[in-house]
């Protein structure tokens, strides 16, 4: 169970192998990678800058991971990497890895972590548009709605 905030890119295979750490009890590994898209609605993006609140981002992501482990005792391990700074279209932004003996726990815990990360982790995206303008990304109602399904359970 670990969280890293870093400006640098990450390698998914290396992170996954390191998290498994040779444990042969792991039958299922899910990774989610978020990437910078070049188009948002009808606007072409030239770059994206991620601002964050360092102390709280680290603590909040650790709390989200702890909640996932409390909710799914069969979640063997998990890892979150979130980048900050200026990124370009196609760059990786975030990585979530979940390990379990069975696939359904690994899938559900990864979705849970992403849904809470989106709405609770203190990161803000500013998009630089191709026409020279730049603007803060607006929070998505869809992301708020995604949380609701976890409340029903």
């Amino acid at each position, binding site marked *: 169970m670990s969280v890293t905030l870093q400006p640098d890119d990450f390698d998914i295979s290396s992170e996954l192998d390191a998290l498994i750490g040779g444990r042969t009890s792991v039958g299922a590994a899910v990774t989610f990678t978020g990437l910078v898209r070049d188009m948002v609605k009808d606007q072409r993006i030239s770059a994206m800058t991620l*601002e*964050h*609140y360092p*102390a*709280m981002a680290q*603590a*909040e992501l650790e709390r989200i991971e702890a909640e996932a482990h409390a909710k799914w005792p069969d979640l063997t391990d998990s890892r979150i990497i979130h980048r900050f700074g200026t990124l370009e279209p196609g760059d990786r932004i975030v990585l979530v890895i979940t390990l379990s003996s069975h696939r359904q726990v690994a899938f559900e815990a990864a979705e849970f972590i992403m849904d809470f990360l*989106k709405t609770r982790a203190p990161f*803000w995206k*500013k998009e630089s548009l191709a026409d020279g303008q730049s603007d803060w990304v607006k929070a998505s109602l869809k992301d708020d709605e995604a949380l609701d399904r976890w409340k029903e359970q």
Partner: protein
Amino acid sequence: MKLVYFAWLREHIGIDEEQVDLPATIDTVGDLLIWQKGRGDGYAIAFSEPETVRVALDQFHAEQDDPVDRVEEIAFFPPMTGG
């Protein structure tokens, strides 16, 4: 007490942090948001729609009626857009 600002709140106010002594009349997060709005032009813009401002007390998300005494760091920011 330390106040910290992020994203467009930081840009409107023009600073990323400040030390302030809160008036004794401020009990809750809600009181604080109203007070902030009256502190000058940048604050007026940043806090013009207080329902769009999120607040964290010592790095924990807070609600409007949470008390702000005994807190060391209060953060103000827009809804989050990471991931």
